[in-house]
């Protein structure tokens, strides 16, 4: 019950929003502007959208007496990142009709689309609704899209574990009907039905900040489970799901120049059996963050700060008090990798899976590969489900042996197989956030720039014979950490247009954060540094020593 006296402005907006409604309907009706009212910009996030503008175009449009080119980003709620081929076909058409046309796979296993004009939001959401898709709580101070280890070959009980993503998402969904009223023209509830909207979890103020839940299935930490507010690590014993280790307080977002902010990996606090008790545990943890989280400074509001302020032991005590039972000690497990399994793979039932490399998660047709067309054609066969990975890739899934050849032919025809096969080791493991020109927080480029930087890096890697080394490289346009740069072996965090801080020494599994090595480097300086670092690494590394581990003890740890 902290800092109640000095609430941040967003807290007031939430409180006065009448269940996240605000004046969104009025904002939509205002024909003069493509923007919505300022308070509504905070509320629309809870409906899965961000107001953005094309920052490249501000000045020119102002001289034309036109307002900024406002549009909206819509992000779907897609627990575990699963979609049927019918849903993909629908999505393909919606992208063509209402958006920039690019379907973007995010680092949280969902889809977002950009460039949707205000007048197109309702038609877009209505179309999604007919596909049984929604964007509720995809952004905002709520439980975000729940992610889960993507590849079904990971475990024979993948489906059972995967199912928790949807169960957790449903449990932590806001109860307000605002989404249906505003975007889908549902009639407001009658007075006597109003109790249906009562929300004991989120109450009036929702959470102090976003809340992220991830489920990992060892030995693969593809989801970067420790980068989440709440990490669940599946414990499989004797071929059955025993339960989950519980890790709390992860989060990578920081603020430049604010020394109170820091990236943090989640702390394992115990083990919980599977079943309803797990859902109750999650519900309770969210409740503690709701009650103890910082509501005066949003930069210090994530669970990691709540946890460190309370102390891990006090947090655990509060949790056990609310639960009425004590957590068991964490069980043993081992992560050995953090990756996507590219190419054709088979699960325990003999179903086939093809993981495509999609640079920065951007599905579109360009000169090289007609990815969007290829996927549309695959979807039209109706033989493959679509699964998204937290590395922004796509797994064509659950394909029967008899259909494998058809899919393979289509992928080959459009150059997808070659594209996946030929992507360098660094490139196919790299991550970048959206950044310029749409993200309002961006200080520097990321997804538009990283591919060309990697091309230049590849020359250096080749020079030192490191081209097969799967060094993880991640870049963000600001320190908020969307592409998890602090959990990379080489992290770039934008500080200003064309300048980046360079972070080194994270491990390849996402269990150790990197540290800052050099500040404010431009491209020339970045390439010079990397050339020197990789030269030393190639000469002096021990056998099988990853770049992150090497960098950690040579360069950043003694700092």
């Amino acid at each position: 019950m902290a800092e109640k006296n000095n609430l941040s402005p967003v807290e007031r907006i939430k409180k006065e929003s009448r269940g996240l409604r605000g004046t969104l309907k009025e904002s939509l009706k205002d024909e003069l502007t493509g923007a919505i009212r300022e308070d509504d910009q905070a509320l629309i996030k809870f409906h899965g959208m961000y107001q953005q503008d094309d920052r490249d175009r501000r000045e020119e449009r102002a001289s034309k007496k036109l307002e900024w080119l406002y549009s909206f980003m819509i992000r779907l709620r897609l627990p575990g990142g699963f979609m049927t081929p019918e849903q993909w076909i629908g999505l393909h058409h919606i992208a063509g009709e209402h958006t920039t046309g690019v379907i973007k796979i995010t680092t949280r296993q969902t889809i977002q689309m950009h460039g949707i004009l205000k007048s197109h939001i309702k038609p877009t959401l209505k179309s999604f609704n007919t596909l049984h898709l929604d964007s509720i709580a995809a952004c905002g101070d709520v439980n975000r899209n729940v992610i889960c280890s993507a590849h079904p070959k990971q475990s024979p009980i993948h489906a059972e574990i995967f199912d928790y993503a949807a169960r957790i998402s449903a449990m932590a969904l806001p109860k307000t009907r605002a989404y249906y009223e505003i975007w889908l023209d549902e009639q407001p509830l009658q007075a006597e039905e109003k109790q249906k909207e009562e929300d004991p979890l989120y109450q009036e103020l929702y959470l102090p900040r976003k809340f992220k839940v991830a489920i990992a299935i060892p030995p693969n930490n593809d989801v970067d489970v420790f980068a989440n507010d709440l990490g669940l690590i599946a414990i499989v014993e004797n071929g059955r799901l025993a339960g989950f280790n519980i890790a709390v307080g992860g989060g990578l977002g920081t603020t430049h120049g604010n020394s109170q902010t820091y990236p943090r990996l989640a702390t394992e606090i115990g083990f919980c059996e599977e079943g309803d008790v797990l859902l109750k545990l999650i519900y309770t943890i969210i409740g503690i963050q709701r009650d103890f989280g910082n509501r005066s400074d949003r930069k210090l509001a994530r669970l990691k700060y709540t946890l460190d302020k309370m102390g891990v032991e006090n947090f655990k005590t509060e949790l056990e008090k609310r639960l009425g039972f004590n957590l068991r000690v964490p069980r043993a497990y081992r992560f050995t990798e953090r990756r996507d399994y590219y190419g054709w793979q088979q699960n325990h039932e003999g179903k086939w899976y093809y993981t495509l490399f999609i640079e920065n998660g951007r599905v579109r047709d360009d000169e090289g590969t007609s990815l969007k067309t290829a996927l549309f054609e695959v979807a039209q066969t109706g033989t493959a489900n679509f699964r998204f990975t937290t590395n922004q890739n796509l797994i064509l899934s659950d394909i029967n042996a008899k259909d494998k050849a058809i899919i393979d032919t289509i992928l080959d025809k459009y150059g997808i197989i070659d594209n996946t096969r030929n992507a360098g080791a660094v490139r196919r493991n790299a991550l970048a956030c959206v950044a310029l020109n749409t993200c309002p927080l961006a200080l520097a480029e990321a997804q538009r720039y990283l591919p060309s930087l990697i091309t230049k890096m590849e020359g250096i890697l080749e020079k030192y014979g490191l081209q097969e080394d799967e060094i993880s490289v991640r870049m963000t346009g600001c320190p908020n950490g969307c592409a998890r740069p602090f959990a990379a072996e080489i992290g770039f965090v934008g500080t200003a247009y064309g300048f980046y801080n360079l972070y080194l020494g994270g491990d390849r599994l996402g269990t150790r954060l990197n540290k800052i090595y050099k500040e404010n480097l431009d491209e020339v300086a970045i390439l010079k540094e990397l050339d020197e670092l990789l030269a030393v690494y190639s000469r002096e590394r021990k056998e099988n020593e990853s770049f992150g581990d090497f960098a950690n003890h040579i360069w950043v740890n003694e700092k």
Partner: protein
Amino acid sequence: MLAEPKLKTFQELITNASREELIWMNGFLAGLVLGESNGHSSSGIPAAVKVNRISLVFGTETGNSKKLATDFAAKAKKTGVNVKLTSLDQYRLSDLAREEYFFIVVSTQGDGEPPGTAKKFYDHIFREKVQLNKLKYGVLALGDTAYPLFCKTGEDLDRQLQILGGTRVVPLQKCDTDYAGDAGAWFDQVMNVLSQGSSNDVVLPVIKKSKHKKNHSGTIITNMNLNDRGSGKQTHHIEIEVEGEAEYQPGDSIGIVPNNRKEIVSAILAVAGVDGTGTVEYRDERHTISDLLTGKLNIVHLPERVVKQYAAIVKQEIPDTRIDLLDLLRIYPVKDEIQFEKVLEVLEPIPPRLYSISSSPEAHGNEIHITVAKDRFNINKEEKFGLCSDFLSGLEPGTSVEFYVHRNLNFKLPAPDKDIIMVGPGTGIAPFRSFIAERDATGATGRNWLFFGDRKFTSDFLYQTEIQNWTQTGVLSKVSLAFSRDHEWKTYVQHRILEFSKDLWSWISGGGYIYVCGAREPMSRDVELAILQVISRQGGKSDQEALACLEQLKEEGRYLTDVY
């Protein structure tokens, strides 16, 4: 033979005379020599009969003819003359043969065409062999001396009515854009005739001598395409800093004479094998050939009458068609420089183009702003641009331009406390930007409602940020927008008018003024139909009553259009 002063007068008299006038003069002088008459003849005319019933018809484009005719009718009624005032498009053609005293006020369109409302009448008297032996008539012609066929419609009607047997009782009066004085003088003559009865002989036609219009110069300070990238349109906001003072009011236009493209001029000189620095005389002034072709002569899309003269000069058969000078020179070359200079003589001046002023004298000080859509059209699959919009859109800041102010007395703001409804899609927004800025600057208390439309919200919302500001400060009480290409269904301003019919009717019935500016077809027609529906639906009127109501609004000057 004549002494110097007389010769000068004589030359002045004949220099600007038309062929018909010369023929008339010839006959008149011959008559004088034969000692038949004294010119203001009266060969057996009945004594003065007081006339108390006349028809006064008008053919109007911008409303000036109508305004004049309406004023005349009011004046005539005061003296006891019964005036049947009719717009030519409403005139029952079968009545013509029965008319006795018949007066016409008519304007002329760009290239000598009758105004839209006079077209039917014009065609009728040229096509039908009507006998008008009873008809006693007079024509007042409005025009603009800047155009080659100044007052042509008035001339045509005046001549044709005579051919059909009518008797001209008042000479044709041709008026330039500052028509008030000449028009008044013509009407005095009409009244004079009415009070004295007619003379059935021809009176010397009074030709208004072309005065030089007051030209202003200015410097382009801004030239910005308002449409965003990706738009199918190009609309330039052009700000001109005026040297000295150019007096205007919101609703007025400026006339600008465009220059021809330099590369076309060079090509013409090359094809003709002529040196552009040589000088020639054109309409009493000496110019270099290059200057003449660049800034004075119309060389594109030449009218058939010019093509005919060209054919005569080069002595070749050329089909009756509109064609560019460059193409003529290529296909039917001139023999030598002498022929080329003869061609220059028959070319007509570049007509000016009028643009509604989009600035306000109160808000924008010594600047005049215009809003120019770059015209694009295809001729034989080749993309071409309108001469003037192409010229203007290419002007760099710092370039000087010449222009004149063209008054539009029929498109003026009402008293400051009156509500106004402005319908101005596309470049139709121009005068309304002026209106709103003016009302903002002067603190007018009347409410302002703007209807604007274009293709796409994101790229074609002209003056968006200004309109947003005026809405925030409350100058604009309401703004209704229609973008036709944002959705599968097309929305135009008339749809928004119908959607808001209830509010609109309350504005109209509360004394509001309606202004429509932009494309004549189909916009202004669709808007008028929509307004009629608003009147009938909301005012509970039959179609007939709604029409009458709209007519009344027009009579009262509360439904005003500036359409093109």
